[in-house]
């Protein structure tokens, strides 16, 4: 089973040279720490920056420079700044290559729910609906099951959804799975020490298993 850092490390393996990437809040933010330094990638912050750098040192802190999680950040050489409409034009126009975000539920059709829980205080969808509606490639970082043990990989989402038919790949604490265009979760890899049977039990939606399922290789 993977912890959050393990999920982030595994997702980092999906990053390819030359990609522009938007990272959501939570586990996705951690992915940045594990992208191989030999790859040239650019991180987009939807509040108006291409080229997010590391967190600032005490003296570098600038209140005019934050990421979408409102954290203080720095800029890489070659960064650019722009307005929110330009930023979402970039996202909506399909210019961002990869979006990595968290989810509360994913359906076997690739629907995602990650913004609202009935009965709980609604904070708003922020940029999530725009991102999932337009991203060329979406990877979801999530726990396979709730704390109560209920599967979050479902036939249909039970929570209000954020977007339909958009998730392409899921990395959980148990497995890596593709969402097939025709529907269904295709098991690609098992987390270290996790059996196919455990994954099968933890997946409520249609699970497709073909041949031997390799264990993930993390360094």
């Amino acid at each position, binding site marked *: 089973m993977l912890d959050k850092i393990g999920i982030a490390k595994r997702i980092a393996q999906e990053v390819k040279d030359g990609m522009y990437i938007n990272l959501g809040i939570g586990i996705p933010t951690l992915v940045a720490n594990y992208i191989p330094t030999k790859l040239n990638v650019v991180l987009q912050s939807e509040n108006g920056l291409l080229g997010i750098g590391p967190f600032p040192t005490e003296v570098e802190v600038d209140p005019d420079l934050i990421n979408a999680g*409102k954290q203080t950040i720095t800029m890489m050489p070659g960064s650019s700044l*722009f307005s929110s409409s330009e930023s979402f034009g970039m996202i909506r126009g399909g210019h961002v290559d990869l979006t990595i975000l968290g989810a509360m539920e994913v359906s076997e059709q690739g629907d995602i729910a990650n913004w609202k829980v009935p009965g709980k205080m609604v904070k708003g969808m922020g*940029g999530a609906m725009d991102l999932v509606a337009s991203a060329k490639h979406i990877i979801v970082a999530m726990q396979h099951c709730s704390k109560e043990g209920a599967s979050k990989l479902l036939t249909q989402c039970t929570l209000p959804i954020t977007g*339909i038919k958009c998730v392409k790949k899921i990395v959980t604490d148990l497995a890596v799975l593709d969402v097939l265009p025709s529907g269904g979760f295709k098991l690609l890899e098992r987390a270290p020490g996790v059996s196919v049977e455990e994954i099968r039990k933890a997946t409520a939606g249609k699970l497709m298993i073909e041949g031997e399922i390799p264990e993930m290789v993390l360094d």
Partner: protein
Amino acid sequence: MINKVVSNAQEAVHDIQDNAVVMFGGFGLCGIPENCIQALLRSGVSGLTCISNNAGVDDFGIGLLLKTRQVKKIISSYVGENAEFERQLLSGELEVDLIPQGTLAERIRAGGAGIPAFFTPAGVGTEVAEGKEVREFHGKLYLLEQWLRADFALVKAWKGDSSGNLIYRGTARNFNPMMAAAGKITIAEVEELVPLGELDPNHIHTPGIYVQRIFQGQQYEKRIEQRTIRK
């Protein structure tokens, strides 16, 4: 050029009346019109409809206007950092309209640019789509969304000149340029009011035509929500 300088925030917001629709620039607490918010607190105007990406925190930004019950309705994409907000919402004192962030940005941009409606994919198949026209283009579904305009837009820039030309700084730009264009009356507060001709015309983010009033703000606090430091 046309001189739009007013002496201070109080003068700038003097005619914002009860029940006005007001846009506030900023993302979180970054790039918000601090001086104008203070002036509204002092003016006591009430029943405001606030269009702003966020709702501030309990004791800063729009959160201050919530505390004094000056706000009737908020139109935002994310309002998560505010306990008083939550209380008023649950008690029914406050109306909230939640809009996907990119749709919010584009609706405001459309308001300023005279585009009454446009199609966007964000929210298709979700509750955001309820009551909206859905249409297919090139094999993909889109929602029809309408422009947003406001009686007043309150924006914050880094530098500005007397004719209302503005330059923002860093990610404090965010919603400010679109709001500047979408306000019937746009009020710009700037950290530094510079002499006409000092700003490079090629670097101006908001041309002065969109700005009706401008003043140099005072005592910017620029509060940081998440001070994240690398060792």
